[in-house]
């Protein structure tokens, strides 16, 4: 049996995890390494006092889609290496929810690839977040209707 995909993780994306990702994309031909972190902010769409987010996913499908997004991005943009981690479970204010590390020969490719990956994950990966407020209430984020930009993953 294959080990579970490391793309989705319950473990904090802390300094040690970021260092691991930085090492994962290290490449002697890279002139640029870009590490993007999405983090929990204290408000969302007019909602104040957000203290945490709680993520859940159709995990096997989400991991498969993110892996396909990474592969398709590599095919389109000449980068060296890409590593992605997305949190599941509760993520506290200020903590990272997603990290995308990209190494490339030049900064332009690294920025373009990182942007393309985060945009597609937000629109395609079956992951949901619940916003937890300071007053003890919580609600699922409104989100967007899932769609895939590429046809190869469509049935």
């Amino acid at each position, binding site marked *: 049996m294959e080990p579970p995909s490391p793309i989705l993780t319950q473990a904090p994306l802390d300094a040690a995890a970021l260092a691991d990702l930085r090492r994962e994309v290290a490449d002697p031909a890279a002139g640029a390494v870009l590490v993007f972190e999405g983090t929990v902010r204290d408000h969302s769409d007019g909602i104040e006092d957000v203290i945490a987010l709680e993520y*859940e996913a159709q995990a096997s499908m989400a991991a498969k889609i993110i892996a396909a997004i990474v592969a398709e991005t590599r095919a389109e943009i000449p980068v060296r290496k890409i590593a992605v981690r997305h949190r599941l479970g509760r993520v506290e204010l200020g903590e990272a929810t997603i990290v995308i590390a990209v190494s490339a020969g030049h900064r332009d490719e690294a920025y373009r690839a990182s942007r393309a990956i985060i945009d597609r994950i*937000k629109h395609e990966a*079956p992951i949901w977040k619940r916003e937890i407020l300071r007053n003890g209430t919580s609600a699922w984020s409104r*989100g967007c209707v*899932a769609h895939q930009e590429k046809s190869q993953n*469509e*049935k």
Partner: protein
Amino acid sequence: MPVIQVNYYAQLREALKTGSEEVSLDLPARERDILERLAQLHPRQKALFLSSRVAVDEGYVGANAMLDGLCRVDIISPISGG
């Protein structure tokens, strides 16, 4: 009429108070047919069903795909990852 397993996540799982149910469904069917059938069964969640996507074997089905021989589908309500 075939019976298929329907899996729910996040807001739909909570609203329906179940992560899975068996539903009889006329096949072949398109994505919209499946969502409308589920909305008919759970009218209070109609708006959520009609803004959801259907996934089979870990991939979204196309809007125009004719689906047959199904035994399990995942209902992907509006997503909010990242």
